[in-house]
């Protein structure tokens, strides 16, 4: 019986300055295989389909269960998590490319620190640091917890930003993930101490106004976060904040 194989085409680039090139690989098929496990096999035996010796592929990954957000890449043209991309569900040859909107480091590795900068710009945290024990925090009702939980699922994979037509160097749009985190922390009884600052931050250049509501973010999100609902709610909150600031100013 002819053994079933898996064909991959992987875009490679040794450094940000190096030329791009594609390499083909052919692996023995195994049940339950995903794109990361395929690349692990390539690392164990880095030989291309043509039989040339090559280097292992550089990529980010960690948890292998769609919870750390590291392994986002473009698979068959579409941004998604490589660990949850099962080979048997993908059309072959499987074309794997790095995310296109972030500075490349090497091969499939990109620098996604813009999301971290954006989360810092909107103070996406609950401020509880201090020099003495503040005691227990305010009670969060179960209903509120249920509303917040989906937003807290964000794994910072940046898929929502990669697929967004408005997230590009011309707009410098902040992206859906950060807007959803603003909603999460504004809903938190302690986190909302920064509510006004977060909303003002989102009215800056590259802020929520750049959203074109193409809704790709919510389609692509591997965690099914209600991103378009968050953009709508925060859009209203930012507008109300701006009007208040204008009338009080």
């Amino acid at each position, binding site marked *: 019986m002819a053994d079933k194989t898996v064909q991959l085409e992987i875009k490679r680039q040794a450094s940000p300055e190096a030329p791009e090139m594609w390499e083909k690989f052919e692996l023995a098929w195994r049940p339950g295989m995903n794109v990361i496990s395929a690349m692990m096999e390539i690392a164990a035996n880095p030989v291309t389909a043509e039989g040339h010796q090559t280097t292992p592929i550089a990529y980010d990954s960690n948890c292998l269960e769609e919870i750390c957000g590291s392994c986002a890449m473009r698979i068959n043209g579409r941004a998604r998590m490589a660990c949850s991309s099962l080979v048997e569900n993908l059309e072959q040859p499987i074309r794997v490319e790095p995310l296109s909107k972030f500075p490349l480091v090497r091969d499939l590795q990109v620098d996604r620190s813009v999301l971290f900068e*954006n989360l810092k710009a*909107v103070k996406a945290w609950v401020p509880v640091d201090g020099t003495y024990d503040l005691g227990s925090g305010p009670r969060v009702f179960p209903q509120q917890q249920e509303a917040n939980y989906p937003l807290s699922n964000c794994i910072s994979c940046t898929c929502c930003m990669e697929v967004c037509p408005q997230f590009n160097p011309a707009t410098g749009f902040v992206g859906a993930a950060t807007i959803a985190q603003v909603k999460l922390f504004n809903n938190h009884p302690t986190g909302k101490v920064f509510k006004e600052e977060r909303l*003002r931050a989102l*009215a800056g250049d590259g802020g929520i106004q750049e959203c074109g509501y193409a809704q790709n973010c919510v389609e692509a999100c591997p965690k099914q976060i209600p991103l378009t609902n968050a953009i709508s709610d925060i859009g209203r909150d930012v507008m109300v904040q701006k009007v208040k600031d204008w009338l009080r100013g």
Partner: protein
Amino acid sequence: MATIQQPAAHTVRRGVQPLRAGEGNSYVWHKLHSLLGIIPIGAFLIEHLISNFQALGGPVAYGKTVEFLNSLPMVHVLEWVFIFIPILYHGIYGLYIWLRGKSNVVYYPWSGNWLYLTQRYTGIIAFAFIIQHVIMERFMGVSLHDHPGAAFYKMQQTLANPWMVAIYVIGMLAACWHFSYGVWLFAAKWGITPGTRSRRRFGFVCVAGGVLLAVLGLGSIWAFVGPKYANAPQNVPISYLNAPAHTGAPV
């Protein structure tokens, strides 16, 4: 290794800059663009299509509508402040928005993404049509401000050319599409419909409204093109327009 040595494009990818928290005025310009699309531009579109629908009543009814609109106080100020300047701003800023977006329906052929792209194409089609329409019908030919009774004949002459009929149908449908989806987008982005179900339901409302506007527009184009008023007078005298509705005999 030979395969690596191929000369390839030198592509160092730059990243997207982070949010400029609280900086700049682009928020105000964006929101002004968004609001102007509803009021006054959208409101005017509805008024305009309803007024034009009066053409189905013939040259006298249409002339009366045009005369009424021209009798509004400070009509020239109204048209510049509430129609021409808002449309110019909305159109030019809209082009700027379009140029800064990078459509990716090739990779992500989802309905919202298609509508994002369609909103840009219908916008440019409607904008080009409106410029043509305003120059030809408002600023050229017989002045309808001075001769409201000539309105029907003027439009009929324009639409005597089948190419113009095609341009009018396409331009009018693009405007109706752009406005209906624009209302939906406005409600979504300003937080009026923050729920998935509310947006879905409001989508049906916007489709119904858009179809209704398109029917009004097509009906008025038919009034000028159809056989019923083929021998419309070049100008309906003012005295005729002011006469109470009756048999139609000259006063």
